[in-house]
């Protein structure tokens, strides 16, 4: 226990003795984690926007005029089985006539003495998946179902939204990975610098028979504390940014709001602890070879 207290105290002393380099490192960690947090918020809100937009995707499937309402039910059940299809709603010929009357104010039976409107179905597709949705195979599968006469969908709009989503998703992933590597490198180099400056302590500890783990622990604590401090500051700044952003948005509209996941802070702190640990481990492992 006393040994642990000694090692933790040495870790804190390292930070206190090398305030400037530690502050620089904490600031770098803060900035990079803040950027990662922002990317996370952008990604999260993009995902929610995509889910909303996908809920508006509508595929209208018109059946052949000779398809009866019962047959329409059966065909729609076939369509429901196609991968990527979330739900279907059958519109019988009578339903279609009702919709016509609602929209145009006249009963089609009065005009034509018969109902020429075919049975149809509205198909909704899965909307919560993270990958972009490829609409073409779904349309093709629907078109191949026996009894289907025509398929209407917002092909260009859907493709464009999905393409942008794919780009945003990939961009965020690559940017976050690069920023993470940069952060690990920053912490690693700060620890290396501390290690070089503390070479007298390292040498003294080696000479009196300290194990590699014993020598490394204060530097690992140093790295963990740098990461943790940077993460706490980044979390505070991130929530501050979301709060301020929503404040300004509220002045323009009440329908849009930036949502901030309650767990962002937890994620950032966990990431920072891992980053700090990896950075410090890399530095000390190399220098104690």
């Amino acid at each position, binding site marked *: 226990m*006393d040994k642990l207290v000694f090692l933790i105290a040495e870790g804190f002393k390292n930070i206190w003795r090398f305030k400037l380099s530690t502050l620089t490192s904490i600031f770098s960690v803060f900035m990079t984690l803040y950027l990662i947090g922002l990317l996370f918020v952008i990604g999260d809100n993009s995902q929610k926007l995509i889910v909303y937009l996908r809920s508006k995707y509508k595929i209208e499937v018109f059946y052949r005029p000779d398809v009866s309402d019962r047959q329409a039910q059966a065909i729609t059940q076939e369509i429901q089985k196609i991968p990527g299809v979330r739900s279907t709603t059958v519109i019988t010929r009578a339903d279609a006539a009702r919709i016509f009357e609602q929209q145009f104010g006249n009963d089609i039976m009065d005009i034509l003495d018969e109902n020429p409107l075919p049975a149809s179905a509205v198909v909704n597709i899965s909307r919560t998946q993270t990958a972009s949705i490829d609409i073409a195979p779904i349309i093709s599968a629907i078109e191949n179902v026996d009894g289907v006469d025509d398929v209407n969908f917002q092909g260009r709009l859907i493709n464009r939204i999905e393409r942008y989503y794919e780009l945003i998703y990939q961009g965020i992933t690559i940017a976050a990975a690069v920023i993470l590597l940069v952060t690990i490198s920053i912490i690693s180099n700060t620890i290396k610098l501390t290690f070089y400056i503390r070479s007298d302590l390292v040498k003294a500890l080696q000479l009196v028979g*300290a194990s590699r783990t014993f020598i490394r622990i204060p530097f690992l604590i140093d790295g963990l504390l740098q990461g943790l401090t940077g993460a706490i500051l980044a979390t505070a700044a991130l929530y501050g940014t979301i709060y301020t952003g929503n404040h300004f948005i509220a002045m323009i509209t009440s329908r849009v709001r930036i949502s901030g996941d309650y767990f962002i802070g937890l994620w950032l702190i966990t990431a920072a602890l891992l980053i700090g640990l990896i950075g410090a481990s890399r530095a000390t492992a190399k220098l104690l070879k």
Partner: protein
Amino acid sequence: MITLEDVSYSYKKWIGVSDVNLRIESGEYTYIIGPTGSGKTTLMRLIYLDLKPDSGRVLIEGLDTNKAKRRHIPKIRRRIGMIFQEYNLLEDRNLFANVALPLHVLGQPRKEIKASVDAILNELGLYSKSSHMPNELSGGEQQRACIARALVKKPDIILADEPTGNLDPITAYDLMELLDQINGRGTAIFMASHNYTLIRDRGHRIIQIQEGKLRT
């Protein structure tokens, strides 16, 4: 206790030691004397496993250091006390904390550390300077502090590399007396020096080294 068999070590541009055969028994006091660059420090570094021989072998209590795994090195070093010409005290902590360092490494409880450090500082006449920083101590006091740091963990042997090199003659003589007392209690001492006058009349074994080779 420590045996060197046909040990050779070369640096990139010069020979460190060549075909050294040496045996140091438990409790023995041995001087190694030779001019600067003759291989004294290389020999010390081979014994405390800072270097591995190019050929031959170093045995510490029967353990061949060539076969020692990395995790064995700290354990071997805990049985060896080191004293250098440059005192190598940590400037960021006081005398007490410097001397306590090896005991923290050994994982001793705080109370025991205090008792051991106080005892050794008292014995070496440094107790009143416990809270002094290294730069507030004289050269002789700093060297005694190094001895305290080496002794506090009760080592089997002390390796002293030119411990009097930075001391005035009177302080150097006092230090030699102190090392004699320590040896008198059973701790082996292997001391390197280039000052023959200082050691010749002390009645201990003297080995000569020149250009990396031992001469008896």
